[in-house]
């Protein structure tokens, strides 16, 4: 891997968790900074200019969502949330507050690394200026608005393309229902999730090998959808 050493800031009060996160990230060539509380974390976020922040929600001095809000008030740095709460509402709230993605404890390192890479890729996207998003056998050219599956161009309706476009610009990251609905529909229909479910079904018919077992456009139960950067089987740990 030839990428420069990205700096990752771990804001997590449990030393046991920090220990394996450091090992996992360092193994992948990241430079790791640790902070064991919100105050230290915010300081490090300001002075060390990290490329990525891994933020635990249960901090002793300040709730993680508060930390996220403060970081977001001056920075767009990718933030991935670590949470023991599997409640969907909480996840959606955090994503809307500006988190790039989340993982629920207990998680495997591969999962966190995949999310981290996706978040970083999106963060540095303007620099690379590559208008073509590749997700497994699927490639989406954001400029020419063409979609091809296994090098074969496929035709999508306007709404299907809109959906795929949003997911492609966040490839590897979760996109909430709310965000999708707002972008695709307008007016009083935009909070109706049934449209989205149906639209996803139709899009899956066109891009998935087996629409009943989607491996590209996957559902994040209660939260939203995610376009996998690679086929799910390969990405899973």
């Amino acid at each position, binding site marked *: 891997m030839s990428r420069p050493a990205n700096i990752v800031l771990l804001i997590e009060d*449990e030393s*046991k*968790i920090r*220990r*394996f*996160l450091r*090992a*996992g990230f360092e*193994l992948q060539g990241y430079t790791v900074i640790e902070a064991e509380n919100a105050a230290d974390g915010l300081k490090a976020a300001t002075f060390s200019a990290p490329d990525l922040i891994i933020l635990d929600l*249960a901090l002793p001095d300040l709730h993680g969502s508060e930390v996220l809000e403060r970081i977001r008030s001056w920075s767009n740095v990718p933030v991935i949330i670590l949470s*023991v709460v*599997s409640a*969907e*509402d909480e996840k959606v709230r955090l994503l809307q507050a500006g988190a790039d993605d989340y993982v629920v*404890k*207990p*998680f*495997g*390192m*591969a999962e966190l690394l995949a999310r981290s890479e996706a978040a970083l890729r999106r963060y540095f996207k303007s620099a690379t200026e590559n208008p073509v998003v590749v997700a497994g056998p699927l490639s989406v050219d954001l400029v020419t608005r063409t979609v091809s599956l296994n090098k074969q161009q496929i035709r999508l309706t306007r709404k299907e393309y809109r959906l795929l476009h949003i997911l492609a610009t966040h490839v590897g990251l979760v996109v909430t229902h709310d965000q999708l609905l707002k972008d695709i529909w307008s007016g*009083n*229909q935009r909070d*109706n*999730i*049934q*449209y989205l*479910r*149906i639209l*996803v*079904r139709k899009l899956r018919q066109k891009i998935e090998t087996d629409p*009943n*077992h*989607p491996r590209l456009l996957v*559902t994040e*139960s*209660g939260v939203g959808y995610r376009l996998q950067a690679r086929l799910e089987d390969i990405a899973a*740990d």
Partner: protein
Amino acid sequence: MSLICVGLVTAILMLLEQPVAASLVPIAYLVPVIIAATQWGIWPATLAAIASMAAADFFFFPPIFSFQVEDPQEVIDLLLFLVVALVSGNLASRLRQETETLRQREQDIHNLYDFSRRLAACFTVSDLIAAIENYLSRTLGQQAAFFAARTDGHFEPPKSASVPKVVQENVTSGIATAGAPPKNLVDGPTQNVWLLRVVSSETAVLGLVAVNIGTGTSEAIALKTRRVEAILEEVSLTLQRIDIEKAMEDARLRLQAQLLRDAFHGTLSHELCTPLAAIRGSASVLDSMPRIQKDARARSLVEAISEEVAELDGFIHSLLNATRVTAGGVSPHLEWSDPRDILNAAIKGRARRLATHKVETKFAEDLPLVNVDSGLIEESCGQLLENAAKYSPSGTTISISAKSKQGDVVLSISDQGVGITPDERLNLGRRSFRGQRHQATVPGSGLGFWIASVFVGANGGTIDITSPGQGLGTTASITLPGSAMKHPEPTARHQ
């Protein structure tokens, strides 16, 4: 008695010398009068006074042995004696009465104090009833009976105490309400007055006390009534105290249960989940290390750690769900979902468990969306999948299907396992139930199916378990109410 006293004094005086006796006579005769007054009251004292005067005149004033009096001075003496005797007798008897009343009052207060001490030791209603009966019957020497209130509003006749028919009838025909007026009844044959009083707390009518306060003047009856009422007053205060104590005890228990649950929840989600997350994460980092990847033995050990952690995590997850259910905290967050997504997520979540089985899925093309909490339904499907994997031999097939049936959506999970007996089927919905056959051989908490059925129920669905027989496999089906949506692109807004 007064007359005997007078006679006795006369005899003593007769034995003495005449002159001495004459001067002693009037004073000596005061003694029987005062004794009679203090011992037996005003009328015996008056009788004693008159008898004394007569005896003095007859035996000691000349002419002796005659009621005639010679000396007019002696007539005055005798009359003076009578007046003094009557007045002192009256005073003495009044003193006696006062003392008597005071003693009675003291006894009453003492009894009441004893009673309230007994009441203070009453913590249940039955304690209280025993105290009332005991106090009224033994301490006051009055017959008392307690009629317990029944839930239908009538009173239950007491088992032991004998109560006249008229009281019996009056009570059993009455309706138990706190507002029933107090009543006094007269028992025909014995002319005993029975007092009927309802015993009630602020919240409930406990019963009715019938007290026999005997016969007597209306004044005596009123006095006894007051005494009984003082006792009942005390009783109703105690009842209120018991009520309050009971409410407080209930609240304390509820609070404790709540605290325990919260503590359990907090402990599980933090004290257990954090180390677990550290182990899982560390194992996954180890697994990706080149040195470990080269070593097959090390890899298999890391694999084992990961598997055990997943197992433990699943177990903790079940317990958390169970506390959630027990706490009454299942409030589904309904959202239109694709049944396929739910099943796929459940299969993915249990991938490790299903690894040794062949998994087949069959989804109907025309599946409608369902308006459910996808998290809860996914969890339920996961539990059923886990059971299917647990109770069927590895290598067999687990078939998962989703189809629409008369507008409803049916998710089915079929295995080729041990099946289920009719007896086991009856007990399935019970928390912590585990079939006798499997307790020793298959690990589990018995929570899985219970959690699944509660979660599905919260979403308005049902779970059905069928089995063609022992050893012939089991099919678990979740039926979810279908959507009102028929067209792929609806125009009406739902919710």
